[in-house]
């Protein structure tokens, strides 16, 4: 059974245009994703493709002007606002992308520990700090005294110590040096092997591949491919979607090859395939038909020409 199932999710924001008319802009559309107990699913893709918003939708912390449709199930039951509030921070924990989420007025040690933590939990926290290379003195510091990398490790400790069985980590490793980043991912792997589920949102594809079971590739508000970690190899021959291949080949350790153009803005998506304006394999059909997600070679792809 899936621990978490996201089905046909859409998220829209209401904006006021110049004439002060209210307009709805859809930023996530037709997004489906599932994760089983014991799995690490890496979410990679374009900046602004909706990765953080997906995380916020699952946690139930979208801003007030957001409207959500579709279904999110946790443990086989629909997640509504009330259940989200009950599970948040206990069953489901988020490592936020922005380090601004730390409470500026509270010492680090206090924010990490669960209120009423006993000796055992305090010891666990110390162990975790040591593992992530945070010195014991860090507990006494306030967030403004932390470097970017330190703040991130504190956020990580908070989420992993919560005992949550679903951890959503939104860019947990930037700013961490190699050993700390590796340690973090290995720790995620251990947590998953204990039966927890981890949604790992990251731009560091290469590191994610060392621990992830499967990879979801996002572009312009939706999933364009679900692949096995092993499909990311060579020049991306085994990948199913042209965007996934472009992403892989743009890595500095691969070709460092950019593609021209930019991701379309929410509310200004092309009529056909969202990737058509930049796709080297696009045909006339591609700008007319909106491809559905379909099964292909043990994964999923949203492209009419993929084979």
């Amino acid at each position, binding site marked *: 059974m899936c621990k978490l199932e996201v089905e046909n999710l859409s998220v829209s*924001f209401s904006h006021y245009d110049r004439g002060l008319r209210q307009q709805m802009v859809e930023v996530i559309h037709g997004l489906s994703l599932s994760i089983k107990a014991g799995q690490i699913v890496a979410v*990679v*893709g*374009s*900046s*602004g*493709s909706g990765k*953080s918003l997906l995380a916020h939708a699952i946690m139930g912390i979208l801003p007030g002007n957001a409207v959500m449709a579709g279904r999110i199930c946790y443990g086989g039951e629909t997640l509504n606002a009330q259940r989200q509030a009950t599970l948040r921070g206990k069953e489901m924990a988020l490592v936020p*992308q*922005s*380090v*601004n989420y730390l409470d500026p007025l509270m010492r680090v040690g206090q924010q990490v520990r669960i209120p009423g933590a006993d000796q055992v939990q305090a010891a666990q926290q110390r162990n975790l700090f040591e593992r992530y290379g945070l010195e014991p003195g860090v507990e006494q510091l306030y967030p403004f*005294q*932390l*470097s*970017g*990398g*330190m703040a991130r490790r504190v956020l990580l400790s908070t989420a992993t110590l919560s005992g949550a069985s679903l951890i959503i980590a939104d*860019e947990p490793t*930037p*700013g*961490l*040096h*190699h050993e*700390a*980043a590796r340690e973090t991912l290995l720790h995620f792997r251990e947590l998953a092997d204990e039966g927890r589920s981890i949604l790992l949102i990251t*731009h560091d*594809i290469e590191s994610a591949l060392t621990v992830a079971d499967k990879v979801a590739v996002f572009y312009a508000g939706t999933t364009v491919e679900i692949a096995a970690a092993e499909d990311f190899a060579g020049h991306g021959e085994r990948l199913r979607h042209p965007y996934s291949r*472009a*992403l*892989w080949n*743009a*890595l*500095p*350790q691969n070709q*460092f*090859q*950019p*593609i021209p*153009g*930019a991701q379309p*803005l929410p509310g*200004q998506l092309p009529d056909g395939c969202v990737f058509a304006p930049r796709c080297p394999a696009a045909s006339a059909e591609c700008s007319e038909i909106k491809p559905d997600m379909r099964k292909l070679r043990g994964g999923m792809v949203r492209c009419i020409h993929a084979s």
Partner: protein
Amino acid sequence: MRLEAKKLGYRYANDAWLFRKFDLSLQQGETVGLVGPSGRGKTTLARILAGYDTPLEGTVMLDGQPLPKRGYHPVQLVFQHPEEAVNPRWRIGRILNEGGQPDPFLLQELGIDQGWLERWPGELSGGELQRFCVARALGPQTRFLIADEMTTMLDAVSQAQVWHSVLAIAKQRNLGLLVISHEPSLIRRLCDRVIEWESLVH
């Protein structure tokens, strides 16, 4: 032009010194990588070079002269976390104009859509916001750019795009770049030479 750090020393309050007698020299037109563990003071050094903080010891010199105290700072810094570098109560367009009118070619190169200028910083993704910070730092009077984990929050395609643009602009305007990154493969792609933080800290 040459940017020089001479015998810099810095520490926060009464903590241990982060670095002392720190020397660094960067020539216009060259791209230099700076690598080392996190939390040891690379960002602090970047802030000092760009004039955000004053060193407790030593000086930063531009062609043998101390850095200007007022006016446009010729050494610009792009931070790791864009949300900390912008005023959340200003619209993007206003933030961008802080450093003078932006070059439309630059905006296009960096993949910045005009439509974003109307938005508030909280309404953009981390990667979108970072492109603004890059554009803002590349004003016409910039001579050196310090990129502190500048593209770690971007996807690989945008990262390659931003760096290809920045390198092209740096070449065209003969800028000096200091690239602080934890990613060895990125450093290898970009830099003429690499400095190990630990080899410079005493």
